[in-house]
């Protein structure tokens, strides 16, 4: 699957740096570092290399990967979705509230959650495409609107089973489907990992195997040229933001299933993690642009790093620094070692 990513015609035509070593680092550096990291951690700690721990790492990366893939889609059209974290928080509260407060079934809660995500994506799209506000600013506004709406709707309170509703207590409970999403396994693989895997396959196929994917990248590369050849740029940008909202919703559903409660603003922290994963992904296989495989590796890379560092009792306040270092190195590889003609 990996060969598809770098074999677009534009890529092949690009003259690589003369230095073969630079070229190798540019393409495979991050994967080599990831492999080395896994080997070193496995030797140093007996638990690291176990199947159980591999599953923990994948579980830890699943949510970031899903929302990161949403970010990736918005990035392919040259956009940037700052609202993904707020959308996750909204979906968490919608799903938890639907079940706990209103007593809806699991499938209804899932549908309502997905609808809320699409609605947030639509808000983004309207602000960007019709109000013609630049992506960063529009999604920043959408972020505040979405999280503000969520906070207003729940009075700033968390949602949990048996919560006080003024004079009575909530009687609804988390549906079995959410219990399964939170702690279910299929052949030893955690349910959230399966969902993330399916989302990855879908986004990978969309971006690499379909006309839509080629159009997304064409718009991201040069929207004026894309419009000139008759591509309905606005329509595809709307689709991209809707998909980003939808994937944020899927991530939000995985998150609420894992915590079994609706915590206020719980998704906000995922914005930067998702964006980091997508940006680290630029450096994977020398793609030098947002891509599905790279984002997946970016998410797994960070989760592996955190898992290993935690195992060696690396202080939490130093972990942020190490993540920053990783992102910095990845960006250096993409932008500094990469082929000059790409910019």
């Amino acid at each position, binding site marked *: 699957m990996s060969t598809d990513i770098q074999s677009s015609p534009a890529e092949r035509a690009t003259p690589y740096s003369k230095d073969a070593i630079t070229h190798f680092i540019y393409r495979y550096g991050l994967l080599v570092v990831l492999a080395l990291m896994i080997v070193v951690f496995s030797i140093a700690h007996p*638990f690291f290399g*176990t199947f*159980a*721990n591999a599953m*923990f790492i994948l*579980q*830890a990366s699943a*949510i970031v990967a899903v929302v990161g893939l949403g970010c990736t889609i918005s990035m392919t059209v040259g956009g940037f979705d700052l609202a993904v974290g707020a959308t996750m928080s909204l979906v968490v509260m919608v799903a938890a509230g639907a079940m706990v407060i209103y007593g809806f079934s699991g499938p209804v809660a899932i549908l309502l959650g997905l609808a809320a995500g699409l609605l947030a994506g639509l808000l983004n799209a309207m602000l960007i495409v019709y109000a013609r506000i630049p992506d960063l600013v529009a999604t920043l506004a959408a972020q505040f609107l979405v999280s503000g709406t969520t906070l207003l709707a729940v009075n*700033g*309170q*968390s949602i*949990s*089973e*048996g*919560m*006080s509703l003024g004079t009575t*207590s909530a009687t609804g409970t988390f549906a079995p489907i959410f219990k399964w999403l*939170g*702690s279910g396994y299929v052949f030893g693989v955690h349910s959230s990992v399966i969902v993330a895997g399916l989302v990855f396959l879908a986004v990978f196929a969309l971006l690499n195997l379909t006309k839509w994917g080629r159009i997304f990248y064409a718009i991201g590369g040069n929207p004026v040229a894309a419009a000139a050849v008759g591509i309905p740029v606005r329509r595809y940008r709307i689709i991209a933001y809707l998909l980003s909202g939808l994937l944020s919703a899927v991530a939000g559903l995985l*998150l609420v299933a*894992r*915590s*079994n*409660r609706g*915590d206020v603003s*719980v998704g906000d*922290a995922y914005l930067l993690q998702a964006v980091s994963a997508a940006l680290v992904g630029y450096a994977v296989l020398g793609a030098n642009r947002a891509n599905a495989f790279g984002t997946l590796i970016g998410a797994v890379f960070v989760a592996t790093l955190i*898992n290993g560092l*935690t*195992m060696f*009792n690396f202080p*939490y*306040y130093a972990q942020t620094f190490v993540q920053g270092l990783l992102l910095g190195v990845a960006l250096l590889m993409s932008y500094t070692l990469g082929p000059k003609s790409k910019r």
Partner: protein
Amino acid sequence: MKINRSFFATLVASAVLLATPHAAFAQEGVPATISASATDEVPAKFAEKNVRIAVVRQLNTGDVYQNWIAGIESEADRLGIKLDVYNADGENAKQALFLQQAVATKPDAIIVGWGFVDSLAPGLEAAKAANIPVITFDVGAQPSDDFVTIDQGDKPMMAGILEKLKEDLGGGDIKGDVIYVYVPGYQALDRRDTVWREFIAENPGLNLVAQIGVVNSNTAAQTADQARAAMTANPDVVAIVAPYDEFAKGASLAVGELGRQSKTKVYGMDISTADIAVMVGENSPWVVTATTDMVNVGAVILRTTAAKIAGQLEGNTLSITPAVITQAELRDAKVQNVEELRKAFSALTTPEVSRAPWMDAVE
């Protein structure tokens, strides 16, 4: 930002404890003590330095949490115990995953700091299945043979400041208008509230003219707004009972703005370096507080866990005794920050709690 954060943590962490699924098969809590069988002979596992404890905490950023883990780490160091610390950055989903991860590494015991049983249930079940004892701090798990629960002494804290209130009003059949600050749904506040309700029932001369309260990211300022309105409507208020430092700061602010310091006193809770400044400030209405020291709390948790591993812990629940500190005491001791407070008030440190004789003999 010192011990006051701990209360907010408790607030956040305990919003739903009463309604957890585990409450259904609740067992009676029995106060935890060191069993009589403990001697000064170091248990073999500890003598061999072969003990590993996992700490899975929901909250880690901030002085309070740094103090808490520092207390655990220094005591673990002294007893030759290896620690694995998992920091969830305030995310319940992350903490839930970390707990399962910790169980999979099969430590001798797991300490869980803050968090919700809703999220932690799968990990707690797994720990139980793997026969790993779990010691929880402010989680709200039901105490049992498998789960030892530890919390700050919310009830004694409340009783302590109310005793001071009674004393200030002359003792005996006290009377006067009072304002009470309370938000239901937070377990620590609810625990304090039970003490308050008993107190107000026992003292019918007290006239509760207003109950106010709000908890959000701007608690102090909004409490001040509410307190000011309530005091304006009720000019004879003699006391505001505000059992959380953000409440107490807000109430103190309102009393000061209305210039009522000579008439209205504030009975608060928790303490931080910022709170100390408010309490000892000129003409401050905040006359008393009650608190625990998180470094001490961490040390007690670690000793309790070690005793559990050694099979020398009887009972399953522990409330750490707080200290009641008055404004006058703070001023006399010329205390300016929490570090000085710790030195000046020995009641904040409880080295005898959960201490088996052998814990002084480990080399």
